[in-house]
Every structure is written in structure tokens, then in C-alpha cells.
């Protein structure tokens, strides 16, 4: 649910390259080692020289100071930004007060009916229970604040995204601009968006809403364009034959035909918006996200998990409902649903007029105390089990001294910076070609010129370790699950849960168990990215055609041989997609972990977000994060394409 699979079609004609892959890879590797050795011997380059820093921070800080001191007087604000902000703020508040005006019972009922209509009776019952649970947990008002903000954000995304998608379909010039822009927007960790918006709009619901829109916009634009492009030519011709103008054809034929794709885009946009709930709370979104942040500040694992579960419930309901709308088929239940909907609507207005809007307090129940006593127990007993030197505390120390610090030192000063850029260029050349190579080289150099080299290497070291750990656990589980339907069915809700739960909620228990520093962030990001690793591995292996299995078996291959020599190579491109997704998820999480001792670029970005005197540096760190994300993303996608065998047909 995290993102549209960013898979590009294979470059084609790569059969030779694919066959010669391992040998060429070995050559590349050897070349890189030589390169590093040469630099190490011939020069004294280490960390990127600080004197080359182009110093973007100062102008940004000056701009910020100008902005805040002119906020009450300059025309940009008085004529344009302030009215815009006020209008949107008004809309969000109106929606929120409307949502709260309606009686509480109509929400579980409407949700239940909606899911019954789109997905059947069981889903309906679960929906009813889910919404009630949010009320029972005492998060009713917070849930509405979140719902109102997300609602406006999704509406604005559609109002911008659908026309933009149409424009991109209509004109190649527009598509040429939108596509790379959307690509970049999707690779940026959500956290990075916040800095420029705080700069422009200050603090509150509106900047939170706008950054949510930017983060969530891509799928609806992209899928509107794709949907329009795939409308069959014959249908369009038929409509033209009837003398329809181009506009009419678009409105009456193409758009209705593209509806399923547009709905899919809406669904993904909604899901992306939901994943911003906690992050947006950093700049004043309020609602459930704020509860999570407060719980994190008071290290209240129970409270954080309650709010986290409320967010998961909301996301799952929205997901199931919006994917079901396009294919809703309630069959015989339709009259009953309609009848009940009318009754509920009448009941809603009646209850609203009677002022029954508060969720009854008598129905409250919390599970936070149980979770808290469990984590207290874990903190006291797992930290160093029986004083044996085994436990989360010693483990955390071991990983820090044996892995994190050596790797960080290797990347930031062990490998001289020109060699690091060289490695990037060679990898790019090998994976795709000169364009990617130049891009990677330029991006790495830019990171250095921003004065972010050391911090970036710190972050990169954490990312690499977390990726290795995630794959070491996730790929085997994925392999098992691809061979075992029972396991897969059992895993699915667990994976869904961990993928939907806001990443911050995972940080809270981890910081109580492990030493402060980089370990909590690394562990939380592994947990966060595991579902993607399992899911894509499973998916890749399941796509290997059964005839291949049978052929391998008829040659007398054992199960292990079959897996190693047949299935894994065939599934390699999917596995690379898994790697790509895992890297992007982990990078986003490691950045967030800057908040709890993770250091690196994340700390700089957080500081920029929260200290007026550090905005400039935060901004630079944000750019470095984006560049790092872009490099890792393009590189892994290029490798995935390389591994993709030429089309079988």
C-alpha cells in the first residue's frame, strides 16, 4: 500500500547482459576495490572538504527571517497566502464541526452499511466494530480532527490530480514535466516536505494539509493518465462516429472508461495521505497523530498503540471501502441496505438536532495499561536477562560497536570521498548507463558541496545495515510463505498491520528496550520494512510459472536446487523490487529516528523543523536526504530492470 509499484518496463534486448551478469559484476567489484586502494595510497582524501561547502544555509535562514517578519504586512501574505490559509483552515474546521455535529452512532452504522454494500456482510460487521472501537478507546474527537484534515487533503488532491492527469494525457509536454516530478515526490521521505511548508505557511492545519496533498498527489495523477491512455481505441472511434466533439468524448466516454483506474488512484492517494497522519502532526495537524507524538514524548507505549490502532482501523476501512466502490455488488442485500441507510440518515439528523454527538463515556475501555505493564516487564527483564550478558542492552552495545560504528567510519572516512563518488559512478554505469552514472556522480558531489557528506554517510551506514537485516529475515520468510499457502494466510493480517501502523508507533516500544542512540531507529526500521520484503519475495516466487518447477523436477532437481538455481534467478527482478521498496521504507524511517538519538541527516532535518535558528541547515539536510533517496531508488530500479529477462513471448 505504500506506493505504486515503480517498476518500469524492461529495457529489452538485455539477454546477453543478463547472461554475462555475474562475470561483469565481479569485474565491476574488482575495479572498485582497486579504485579505493589507489586513492588510499596515492592521496590523503578522507571526508569531503568542509571548505567546499557552498553554504546554502545562510541565504535560507535570511529568507526565513524575512518571511516571518513580513508575514503581517507583505502583499504576498496579505493578498495571497493568508486568505488562502484562512479559507482552507475554515473548510477544515467546518468539516470537523459538521462531523462532530452528527450523532456518534451514525458513524459505525454508516461505515457498516458502506462496507456491506461494497464488500459484503462480514466486512460490514467488521467495519461497524472497527469504528466503535475508536470510540471505545476514547479517541473519537481526535479521529474526527484527523478525518476532517485527511478528507480535505484527499479532495484537494483529486481536484488538482485529476485535471493534472488529464493534462498529462492530453499533452506530452505536460507529461514530460509531471512524470519526473512525481517520481521525485514519491521517493522523498514525507518528513522532508515539512521544512519548506513551515517556511512558507508557518504552523497549523493548513501547512499540514498542504504537505499531505503533495505527498499523496502522485498516484491519482499517474493513474488518471494511465486510465485515459488505456481506453480502447474502438470505443473512442465509435463515439466520434456519432459526431461527439473531443470534449464530449472525454467527458462521456474516456473518463467513465478510465473510472476504475481513477478510483485505484484515489485509493492509493488516500492511503498515502493516511501514512502522513503522524508526520503532519509535527507541524500542527492535531488529531490522532498528535496523540502518537505526545505518547512518544511521554514514552507511553500503551497510549501510542491505542492511537496507532485507531489510525490502522481508519486506514483499513478507507482502503476496503474505496477499493470496493468500483466493483460493489451487494446482490440481494441491496434493498435491506437502502432501507437501513435511509433509517440511519433520518436517525442521524434527529440525533444531531437532539445533541447526541458525544460518544458515550460509559462504553470506554483502554488497553493501554496492559501494554504498558508488558513493556515495563520487558524493559526490566529483557534488558540483561538474569545478568548473563545476554539481552537487549548488551545486544544493542554489540551491534553499535561491532557494526554501526565501523561501517559508519568506513563510509565517511575509510573510503575517500572521490572513491565513493567513483563507486557510485561505476555502479550507475553498470546498472543502466552513462546517464545514470553522471546523475549519481553529480548527486553525490552535491551532497558533499552542501556540507552533508559525513552526516549522509552516517545515515547511509544505518540504512545499509537495516536493509541487510531486513532482507536476512524477510527473504527467507517470503520463500517459506511462497511455498505454503497456510503460512501466507496466517501472515497476511500481521503484515498488513505492520505496514499500515504509523512508523512512530514502532519507535516508542523500541526506545524503552534498547540503549539510546542509533539502534532503536535501526530496529524500528527493520520491523517497519519487513512486510514489504516478505510480500515482494513471496510475490516474485509465486510468479515463477509452475511449468518451470515441473521441468526442474523432471531433471531430478532437489527442492533446494530448484529454489537456488531456478526460482531465485527467475524471481530476481521482483526481489530487486523488494530491495528497492525496503530501502525506501528504511530510509524514511531512519530519518525519523533522528528524533530519538538516530543522529545523521535525520537529526539535522528534525532540528531544522523545530528550531528557528536551524532551518537553513535542516533544509540542506532535507536536500541531502532527497538526493540519497534518489540515488538508492534509481540504482536499485536500474538493477531490477537489468535482471529482468527479455519478454518471454
Amino acid at each position, binding site marked *: 500500500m505504500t506506493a505504486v509499484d515503480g517498476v518500469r518496463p524492461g529495457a529489452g534486448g538485455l539477454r546477453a547482459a543478463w547472461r554475462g551478469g555475474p562475470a561483469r559484476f565481479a569485474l565491476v567489484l574488482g575495479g572498485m576495490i582497486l579504485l579505493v586502494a589507489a586513492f588510499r595510497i596515492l592521496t590523503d582524501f578522507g571526508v569531503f572538504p568542509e571548505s567546499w561547502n557552498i553554504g546554502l544555509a545562510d541565504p535560507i535562514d535570511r529568507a526565513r527571517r524575512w518571511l516571518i517578519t513580513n508575514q*503581517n504586512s507583505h502583499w504576498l501574505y496579505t493578498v495571497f497566502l493568508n486568505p488562502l490559509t484562512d479559507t482552507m483552515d475554515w473548510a477544515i474546521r*467546518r468539516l470537523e464541526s459538521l462531523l462532530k455535529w452528527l450523532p456518534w452512532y451514525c458513524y459505525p452504522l454508516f461505515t457498516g452499511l458502506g462496507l456491506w454494500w461494497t464488500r459484503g456482510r462480514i466486512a460490514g460487521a467488521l467495519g461497524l466494530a472497527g469504528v466503535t472501537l475508536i470510540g471505545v478507546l476514547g479517541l473519537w474527537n481526535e479521529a474526527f480532527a484527523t478525518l476532517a484534515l485527511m478528507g480535505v487533503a484527499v479532495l484537494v488532491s483529486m481536484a488538482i490530480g485529476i485535471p493534472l492527469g488529464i493534462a498529462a494525457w492530453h499533452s506530452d509536454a505536460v507529461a514530460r514535466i509531471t512524470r519526473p516530478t512525481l517520481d521525485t515526490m514519491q521517493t522523498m521521505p514525507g518528513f522532508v516536505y515539512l521544512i519548506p511548508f513551515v517556511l512558507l505557511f508557518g504552523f*497549523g492545519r493548513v501547512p499540514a494539509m498542504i504537505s499531505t496533498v503533495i505527498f499523496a498527489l502522485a498516484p491519482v495523477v499517474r493513474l488518471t493518465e494511465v486510465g485515459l491512455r488505456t481506453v480502447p481505441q474502438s470505443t473512442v472511434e465509435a463515439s466520434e462516429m456519432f459526431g461527439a466533439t473531443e470534449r464530449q468524448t472525454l467527458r462521456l466516454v474516456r473518463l467513465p472508461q478510465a473510472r476504475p483506474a481513477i478510483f485505484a488512484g484515489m485509493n492509493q492517494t488516500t492511503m498515502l495521505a493516511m501514512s502522513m497522519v503522524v508526520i503532519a502532526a509535527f507541524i500542527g495537524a492535531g488529531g490522532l497523530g498528535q496523540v502518537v507524538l505526545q505518547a512518544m514524548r511521554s514514552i507511553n507505549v500503551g497510549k501510542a498503540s491505542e492511537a496507532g490502532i485507531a489510525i490502522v482501523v481508519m486506514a483499513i476501512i478507507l482502503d476496503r471501502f474505496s477499493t470496493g466502490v468500483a466493483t460493489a455488488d451487494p446482490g440481494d442485500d441491496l434493498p435491506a441496505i437502502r432501507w437501513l441507510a435511509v433509517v440511519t440518515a433520518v436517525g442521524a439528523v434527529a440525533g444531531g438536532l437532539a445533541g447526541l454527538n458525544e460518544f458515550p463515556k460509559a462504553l470506554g475501555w483502554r488497553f493501554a495499561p496492559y501494554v504498558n505493564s508488558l513493556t515495563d516487564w520487558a524493559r526490566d527483564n529483557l534488558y540483561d536477562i538474569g545478568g548473563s550478558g545476554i539481552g537487549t542492552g548488551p545486544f544493542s552495545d554489540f551491534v*553499535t560497536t561491532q557494526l554501526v560504528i565501523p561501517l559508519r567510519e568506513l563510509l565517511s572516512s575509510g573510503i575517500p570521498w572521490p572513491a565513493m563518488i567513483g563507486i557510485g559512478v561505476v555502479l550507475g554505469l553498470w546498472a543502466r548507463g552513462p546517464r545514470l552514472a553522471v546523475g549519481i556522480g553529480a548527486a553525490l558531489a552535491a551532497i558533499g558541496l552542501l556540507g552533508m557528506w559525513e552526516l549522509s554517510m552516517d545515515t547511509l551506514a544505518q540504512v545499509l545495515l537495516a536493509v541487510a537485516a531486513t532482507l536476512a529475515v524477510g527473504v527467507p520468510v517470503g520463500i517459506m510463505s511462497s511455498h505454503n499457502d497456510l503460512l501466507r494466510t496466517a501472515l497476511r493480517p500481521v503484515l498488513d498491520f505492520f505496514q499500515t501502523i504509523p512508523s512512530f508507533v514502532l519507535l516508542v516500544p523500541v526506545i524503552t528496550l534498547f540503549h*539510546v542512540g542509533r539502534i532503536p531507529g535501526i530496529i524500528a526500521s527493520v520491523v517497519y520494512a519487513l512486510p514489504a520484503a516478505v510480500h515482494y519475495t513471496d510475490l516474485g516466487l509465486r510468479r515463477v510459472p509452475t511449468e518451470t518447477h515441473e521441468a526442474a523436477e523432471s531433471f531430478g532437481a532437489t527442492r533446494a536446487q530448484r529454489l537456488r538455481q531456478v526460482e531465485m534467478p527467475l524471481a530476481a527482478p521482483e526481489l530487486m523490487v523488494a530491495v528497492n521498496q525496503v530501502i525506501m521504507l528504511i530510509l524514511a524511517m531512519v530519518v525519523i529516528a533522528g528524533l530519538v*538519538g538516530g543522529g545523521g541527516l535525520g537529526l539535522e532535518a528534525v532540528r531544522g523543523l523545530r528550531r*528557528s535558528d536551524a532551518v537553513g541547515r535542516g533544509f540542506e539536510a532535507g536536500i541531502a536526504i532527497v538526493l540519497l533517496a534518489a540515488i538508492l531508488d534509481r540504482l536499485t530500479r536500474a538493477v531490477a530492470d537489468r535482471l529482468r529477462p527479455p519478454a518471454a513471448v
Partner: protein
Amino acid sequence: MYTVRTRNTTRGSRRIFVVLLAVLALIVVGCAEDDSRGSQTTIKLAVNPWNGSAANVAVAAQLLESELGYTVERVDIDENAQWAAINTGDLDASLEVWPSGHAQNVADFIDSADGNVDNAGLIGPIGEIGWFMPTYMVDQHPALATWEGFADPELAGLFATAETGDKGQFMSGDPSWTIYDEQIIANLNLPLEIVYVGSEAGILAALDSAYSRQEPALFYFWTPHSAFNTYDLTRVALPAYSDACYATGDAGGIDCDYPEDVLFKIVSRDLAENAPDADAFLRAMSYSTADQIQMLSAIENDGLTVDEAAAQWIEANPDVWGAWIPSS
């Protein structure tokens, strides 16, 4: 096929139209319920990420609602971000500003002609930021009582962790706080490294964990704080504060202790006109360090929520807050 689809679409749009109309009608009903125009009835107060701030705001919010009939919205915001928000009127007031970190903000938003923020007087408590450690550390190594002790790599090394290697670990909290530790450590040449734990609760959790094992811990902390009731903590004597030393802050030259913080309140200048009673109340509000500590201790040690602690205090001290209510 063409005609069928057209009919479907028009029927679809009609249905959507009806739904939109219904929503619009409901919005109008919703508006009638709560009219936000005219004189201001909702007061937005900044809550900064530490319990003292939350306690002040809880007291103010409960009294503004029960005694003066306002609605109060509490907004979690960092101490730096709040200035711009109060300047534009997005927020109305903040009740516990620690001046040591905000000289620039005071100049930009209070003293400057463009500024739209007023100093609304003192909240009462006087704060001190500093470096703290469990007292058992000083008992074992008396040299640690002053910063010179930490200049000794061996003694500083007692505080080393896996994360910091040979250097001693200095725990700092939320990166948004007023923090000069990087400058102090660099300028005094101390073999220490800063690790940001992220929050007040994070420092307390790490302290609790170290304290239970009698392990070393060195961290950024402040008084007034209820933790001093639970843990025996000693402040490290850094070179004494001087204005001259802090004047070098922008150039990174601070090498002395934090100043004493006389905590004060700030309000938006628009508030006096838009909600005069709330403005008068917030300006008058002031209580003692003991009053605040009493609430903090109820929150941190007895597990009360901030609002429960505030309600308890309000119940017990009508003579204190009675003086804040404007006579009308």
C-alpha cells in the same frame, strides 16, 4: 451502447448532485451551531513539549472555560515555532517562555516595530538549566563536581557508552530546546559527545534505567522539576554565567553555564481587542514554583493526567487564581 452509458452517467451525476446538496445543507446546519465570527470566543494556547508548560496551560484552560466561558484549544508546538504563530495570531499565547534561548525572538517579535507579540509578565517560577548527574557519581569521584573533572579523559570516560566510544556520553533531550551544550563542550575542550534522546520522558527513562543500576549518567536537565523528589541529582559546576559569554553565542563562543531563567508569558497583541477578558486573565496569571512543582509531582509520580493535576490544584487554591479573574 453510447446512449446507455450517457443515461448511466447522467443518473450518476444526478445522484452525486443530491448527495452534495445534502452535505451542503448539513454544513449550513453545522454553521448555525457555532458561529465563529464576531468577537473571539476560542483561545488558542501553546503547549510546549515539557510538563511544566502543559500544567500552566491546563490551569489556564480550565479557568478560562469555567470562569470566563471561553473555549480553549491547546496546540502542541515547539518553543521556537510558537513565536511566528503568535505573531500572526494563529496562536494567542504561550505561558512559559525560558528567556535564555530566545533573545533573537524577543528582539524580532516583541521589541521590533513589526512585532505583534507582547510580554505578558512573569508566570512565577524561576528556572535553571544545567548539567546534572546522580549524586552517587560525585560521591565516588569528587572531582566530577566541577567541569574540570570532566576534562580528565579518564573520568569523562566513565560516562562512555557503545554509542560514544572513548568519549563520555552527554544526554540531551529534544533538539528544539534551548541548548548550548555543543558550544560548551567544544569551547571547554571536554571529551564528551552529545546524544539526543528526543524528549523529557526519554531523559527520564534513561536516568531511571541508569539510576536503578547505579550506572553513570550525565544529562541536560532543569529546575523546577519533580524528578528531584525521586532521584538525588547534583548539578555540575560549569564556569559561571556572564552576559559577555552569552554575547558570543552566535559565533559559537559560549563556554559558561546557562543563565537563570525568569520564566515569562507572551500573548498576541490582537488578543486585547478580540478577547479582552482572556487577555487580562492571561496577563494576571502567576503562581509560585511550589505551586507548579506540586502539579508536576502529581503528574510524574502519582500518574495523574495533566488535567486531573490542574483540577486538583484549582480546587485547593481558589485564593491564588481568584486574583486572575478580571472584574467585569
